[in-house]
């Protein structure tokens, strides 16, 4: 059945016609937020990570209707001004993106982590990334990039 859902995405309001069964992932991609990737579709891989009120969640096992009332952030929201964030820069400088498919999710988890804990240990970083899988399996550079970015977080 068609329904109306109001979503706040990267600070902007959207009134959307959607179906009760549409996932948040599907609606975000339909709206053009293509940084949100469809991976496993079961909540295991983290490619579809977005932030809900600054907390990372898997948008593939969440319905769009569930997201009403929350502030949604996608990777596009990190560079809304047209310039990439220092976190993204740290990923580039450390060669962390590799094939790039998991990168949007990794970046959003890293952002949420650094927002709550500006000086995380490597163990904190690994724990925060536990729900995000990189099939290039190069976690070292990803952890390096986040550790690097944490040194530049303004307090």
């Amino acid at each position, binding site marked *: 059945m068609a329904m109306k859902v109001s979503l706040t995405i990267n600070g902007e309001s959207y009134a959307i016609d959607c179906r009760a069964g549409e996932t948040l992932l599907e609606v975000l991609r339909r709206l053009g937020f293509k940084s949100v990737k469809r991976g496993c579709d079961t909540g295991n891989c983290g490619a579809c990570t977005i932030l*809900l009120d600054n907390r990372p969640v898997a948008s593939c096992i*969440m319905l769009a209707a569930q997201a009403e009332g929350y502030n949604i952030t996608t990777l596009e929201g990190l560079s809304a001004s047209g310039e990439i964030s220092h976190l993204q820069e740290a990923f580039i400088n450390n060669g962390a993106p590799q094939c790039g498919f998991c990168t949007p999710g990794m970046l959003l988890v890293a952002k949420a982590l650094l927002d709550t804990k500006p000086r995380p240990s490597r163990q904190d970083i690994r724990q925060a990334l536990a729900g995000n899988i990189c099939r290039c399996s190069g976690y070292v550079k990803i952890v390096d990039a986040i550790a690097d970015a944490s040194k530049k977080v303004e307090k």
Partner: protein
Amino acid sequence: MKHFRQYIVPTSQEDAVSIRRAVGARGLFIAGGTTVVPRAARTVDVLIDVTHLGLNGIEFQESWVKMGATTRLADLLTPEIQASFPVLYEAVSQCATPLIRNMATLGGSLATVFLPSDVAVALLALDAQVEVLTEAGVQRLALGDLLRSGWLNPNWLLRSLSVKKQKPTRRSAFLKFGRTSVDIALVNVGASFNLDESGRVDLRIAIGQTSSLPTLEEFNGIGESDLTQSSIDRIASEVSKRLQGKSDFRASGEYRKHLSKVLVARALARMAGVDGYEG
């Protein structure tokens, strides 16, 4: 696109219960949705959102700690919960991934006891009570009794879980065995014991994944001095022998019984402060 046709956001707890009753088995409550969205049966087409009904948050009362049913698992990972209920803290921190814990709720984790539920095993060990809203009003039930009667009725709205505040002499532990934390546990064990003034121990051990519902074993009035390596081994063997030992594609019943024995022994040793089990 999932198969659901209608998403209802009720404005009161009573409405939620009457909508569920009206639609019957076509309807399901949805909280975090982490089980409902990927796994609900094709026959379910109405979802009833329970996350806007004032059932969120943790309250430290005089002698109970009351946790709202829609409290997210991530919000249970606090220093207070860690200090008061190690078994619950450990179960939640080993349950799924950070992404899932930010969505999944306490109530959703308990209602899914038929699936592997780390949180339900921990709450059984803690002798938790649930408050549910039924058509007949609010009821408070012990989880142990629910287990004996076949668990929650799908028409009931879970409102909260309460655990008695622990004396400093109460200890608890949670252990699970699986390939990784995201993988479903082959066996999970929650245990807690309470030491009274006369040095007697009341012990509760909950074991998940060895039959369709968790198993709960209670031992009352063992002497504390009995919790030596040899008596721990004896209790663990006894418990393991009594288990049904469910076999499925993940593990055989025999293997699960063996794992249960090892995990129960480790949990008891950890609580009693006996070394030599974690190897």
